[in-house]
């Protein structure tokens, strides 16, 4: 068979990749420009090495604090999701109990509802608990998720029946089977869900914006939004903030992208 040529595909893909990449490169360049340089026409495409932008942005909003908030929230939410979703998913996939199908359907129904329907009542719950402007307000709703349960259930279902049966004959209870046998085998699913959860938690804007209005308690997303209000067209400062805020997740993704992609295609093909 003749080998198909691949260079036309490379040319087109490279052009597309440049369009994808250019705004990021541009953002980094401008984050290192002086204010007048950033407003020049024709645009200046080189940095002026104005490192003080990064110092300025840390001084004008509590960016370090917001960074810490974001990390803490993402870490706790992800740990919680992994534990609670995997427990429920294991039960749905491997244990038989009356009402299993009906409860699972209810979980699926939750998946279909747009997130905006949850916001007002959740806000009132947080208000009632006195949790407005706290990290708990960002964490508590985030650790529960129908999507994660659904995703992991699909992974648990692919494991052979004999595994549970053999372990049961050895006298292991379901919790032991879950922890010692099943969980290690669904690691790809856990990794994918973990990455997706970190990304969502890191990026989400509407809920943090609504529930935590004190800059000290904001996450980076909301912090950037409020920075925009402060520095309407001071893009070097805005971009210094953006670079700091978005770099960790980009780095995480570049290192672990294979697992994330596997998780996404899994939901796509089985969803």
């Amino acid at each position: 068979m003749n080998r198909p040529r691949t260079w036309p595909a490379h040319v087109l893909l490279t052009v597309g990749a440049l369009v994808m990449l250019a705004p990021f490169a541009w953002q980094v360049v401008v984050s290192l420009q002086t204010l007048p340089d950033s407003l020049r026409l024709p645009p200046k495409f080189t940095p002026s090495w104005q490192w003080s932008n990064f110092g300025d942005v840390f001084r004008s909003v509590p960016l370090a604090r917001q960074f810490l908030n974001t990390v803490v929230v993402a870490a706790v939410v992800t740990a919680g999701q992994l534990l609670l979703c995997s427990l429920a998913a294991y039960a749905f996939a491997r244990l038989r109990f009356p009402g299993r199908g009906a409860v699972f359907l209810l979980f699926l129904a939750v998946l279909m509802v747009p997130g905006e329907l949850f916001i007002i009542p959740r806000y009132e719950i947080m208000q009632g608990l006195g949790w407005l402007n706290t990290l708990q307000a960002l964490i508590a709703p985030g650790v529960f998720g129908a999507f994660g349960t659904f995703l992991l259930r699909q992974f648990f279902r692919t494991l052979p029946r004999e595994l549970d049966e053999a372990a049961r004959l050895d006298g292991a209870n379901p919790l032991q089977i879950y922890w010692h046998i099943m969980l290690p085998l669904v690691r790809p699913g856990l990794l994918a869900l973990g990455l997706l959860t970190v990304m969502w938690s890191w990026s989400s804007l509407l809920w943090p914006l609504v529930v935590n209005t004190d800059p000290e308690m904001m996450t980076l997303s909301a912090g950037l939004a409020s920075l925009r209000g402060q520095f309407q067209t001071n893009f070097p400062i805005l971009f210094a903030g953006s670079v700091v805020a978005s770099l960790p997740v980009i780095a995480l993704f570049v290192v672990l992208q294979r697992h994330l992609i596997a998780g996404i295609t899994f939901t796509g093909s089985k969803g």
Partner: protein
Amino acid sequence: MLSKREWAWGYLLIAPMALGLAVFYLWPIAQTLYLSFTESGVFGGYTWVGTANFTELLGDEEVLGALGNTLLYAVLVMAGVPLSIVVAALLNVPGLRGLSVYRTLYFLPVVTMPAAVGLTWRYLFNGDFGAINYLLGEVGIDGPYWVGDPDFAIYAIAIVGIWSTIGYNAVLLLAGLQGIPRPYYEAASIDGAGRLRQFFRITLPLLTPTTFFVVVITMINALQVFDLVYLMVDLKGPALSGSRTIVYLFFEKGFVQNQRGLAAAIAVLLLGLILVLTAIQFRLQKKWVHYE
């Protein structure tokens, strides 16, 4: 004797998640439905007003404007799906090297926080010193003020919306492409069909189940756009009237103007819109989706 214990274990293990979903998902749905029929008082508390919120919303020009903007945005972003198909097809070229590098690059906008993405494009779309109008000027086009102009803002946002979902959709579509059996192509090339012909006669029809899934997901997400509007548009200027979306309106009514009942009604309206449009998509699929 084993099964009773298995029941107990089953309930025990789903209990934490089920409780959380009940408190933070199911109860809020019921509560939002209830609130949509009430009006919130100045000092808190709600009074039942029947369907007044809904009649008010459907007679309000701002709401109808937001509805129109949201639908236009959703249509524009769905019109970007063919781009993802092209990218996926290129990534699926046999013998292509560097697949994971391309995939990473196309995926960068997906993993970057929308707040940062929105700010970047706000700069690029600036009417005076933005790179996009500069480039347009180089080829003799006098670009508009984009995110400062009510007639153009939603288009600018849609361009960013497409840009930031191409990678995600392409990855889903690529998985679909990889599921198409190779022998189809081999048989076609023996019959003398060129690659372009194969693409239109084999690839596109056999990909339609995945394409359908991607179109529906894209639509549902597009109908909920908020972040890009909030970050890109000049919220105090005239451009907001041309780019205010339903979720933005929800945020504005619920948390800027503190009209919670009205905001709840907007959320319910959005749910209805998504359900109806998704149902229509499922109806229409019979006309263009090929299941084997």
